[in-house]
């Protein structure tokens, strides 16, 4: 089944370990992580679309600055949209929303894939990568919040947009809300263990 392939085969976060910079810091709550995953996916799709559209007119030297301009305009549009419609989410992202511009996945996919293939293929690839990224980020966000904070915020900051506020409290005992997962070190260790675990499963399957 394809999802399994997305998650393990070429998942940008777990396998290629790309695009971690701006994302790990935001995954303290489940809602923020899947929102960030959505934002990155939308930008990825749009940027691949535009890049593959203009790939014939752009020669090799000025490729990087042009792509950067495209991506940063997209990000600014998203910023304006978010700051107008869901101010708390925009605030909680803080400096990490503009940082999506330098996210290695978007520029990476644009440079390596979109600039050489037809629009449909680059769109498919953007979708594949986007979903893989979204799934990975939300898994990390889920784990970090449930284990670290004992709660699961499905929709809180953007409640003004969707009008549905939902925060589930799962653990409240003294064992489980273990603040380690909220700290930055905990996130590193958690990610390391997840990637190690996936490697051992992949190795298990191949051999």
């Amino acid at each position, binding site marked *: 089944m394809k999802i399994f392939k997305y998650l393990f085969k070429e998942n940008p976060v777990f396998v290629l370990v790309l695009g971690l910079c701006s994302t790990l810091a935001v995954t*303290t709550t489940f809602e923020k992580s899947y929102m960030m995953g959505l934002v990155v996916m939308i930008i990825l799709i749009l940027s691949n679309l535009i890049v593959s559209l203009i790939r014939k007119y752009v020669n090799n030297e000025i490729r990087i600055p042009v792509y950067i301009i495209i991506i940063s305009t997209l990000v600014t549009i998203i910023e304006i949209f978010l700051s107008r419609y869901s101010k*708390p989410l925009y*605030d*909680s992202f*803080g400096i990490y929303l503009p940082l999506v511009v330098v996210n290695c996945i978007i520029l990476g996919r644009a440079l390596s894939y979109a600039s050489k293939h037809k629009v449909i293929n680059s769109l498919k690839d953007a979708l594949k990568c986007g979903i893989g990224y979204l799934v990975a980020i939300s898994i990390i966000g889920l784990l970090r919040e449930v284990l670290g904070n004992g709660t699961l915020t499905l929709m809180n900051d953007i409640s003004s947009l969707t009008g549905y506020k939902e925060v589930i409290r799962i653990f409240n005992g*003294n*064992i489980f809300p*273990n*603040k*380690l*997962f*909220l*700290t930055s*070190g*905990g996130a590193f*260790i958690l990610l390391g263990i997840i990637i*190690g675990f996936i490697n051992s499963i992949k190795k298990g399957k191949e051999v």
Partner: protein
Amino acid sequence: MKFIKENGPHIKSNDSTSKIMTRFLIALTPIICFAIFKNSVIVYSYASKGFIESLHPLFMIIVGALTSFISETLYYKIVLKNDLRTSLYESYRSFGIISGILLALVLPPNIPLWLVSFGSFTGSIIGKMLFGGFGQNIFNPALLGYLFISASYSNLMGSPFNAYELDTIGGATPLSNLMNFNYTGSFENIVSPFGDLFNLFVGNIPGAIGEVSKLLIIISFIYLVITKTIKWIIPTIYVTTVFILTFIISKYIDAGVWYSLFHILSGGLLFGAVFMATDPVTSPLTTIGQILHGLSLGILTVLLRFLTPYPEGVMTSILFMNMLVPLFDKIGIKARNNIRNIIIIVITFILIIIISILNITHKLDKNSSNVSELDSKVNILEVKEDGNKKIYEVTSKGWGLIKADVEVEDKNIKSIIIKDSKDETQWNEIEKNNYIYKVIQNQNNIDKLDAVSGSTYSSNALKNIVKKVKIEEAK
């Protein structure tokens, strides 16, 4: 009659790794016995606690040792997939027990048992097994367990007292008491509340289980050095650096020699130096590397004790120096035979010492006159007074500017009403874990309270408000 074909030396020294580790355990036993004696026997006789409860430290040590042993056996069995017998033998050979016991000795006496097992489990598995098993870990597994516990359940860490010592002054270990007097103060208000230096030396003062009996630590240190079990260079240089640095500082704030002696005898310095810093796996091999290791440990501990809110500098500095061990060994190899490199190293270290002393003295001056710095951040617009209640209208610089009314009743802050915090971007974090209530609750030693992760500046702004109001009240 069979002749074995083998090269290499055929007679070997009769010392072996398991002998070294058993000698290490023997050196630990007096401390364990004292810990049990002080924390349970006395408690049982004085504070009339139940027999089982007062044996709590003994259970802690047993649980610590058992969990690390079992977790390593499980690791060998499940992850490395060998049968039970070999994994038992392998885990016996990797001496997990020692780090389990060391972890238990470092923890305060009355913390829940599952916390001890959590610490020794994470310490052995993440700190040691994932790095490749015995002899390959970068960080000391016992200290790593301590780090994980304090990072994940700092509120459960509990107070470093057993029932017997609850009456000592206002719930402070010698070091945190020193901090309240911001590192200056006379012999009376720093040492005398704990008896005198001899008391510190013998060890009936509050503190983690294993750390307090300095006399026993020194005896086991001498035993370990005679039987050549540990690298004696690291502890000696570590303690002497701390002594010299605190001596210079005591000269600066013209306190007597007792000040540096106090620093050495308090907290986990001696225990950390003798048992934690000399763990052969996580300390440098070359002699010059060990000298550098000891030196930088000393400097960092003094820096941490004076400059950071955490009173206990030893644990973090040992862990920090574990990271730099490859660097010290690299220098040790290069500088082994030519003098020019050694001179360069000595100069750099003297420079580091001077910078750190200047830093500390600068901080001490700033502390004594810390009102000036606070003034720049917080200013009181006006004070309304009715009866014994006072309301301070205050503004404090966080990300933007916070306006608040602080209601004070006979020197105690009752409530803080925030009037305006529009450009405080991280404000919802503050509200989410009702930080204002916590600030009011810890108003007496406000420095101990951690800032809300992700919005350090607004939480500091709130803490400054409390500090400023307390100083106003104290006038």
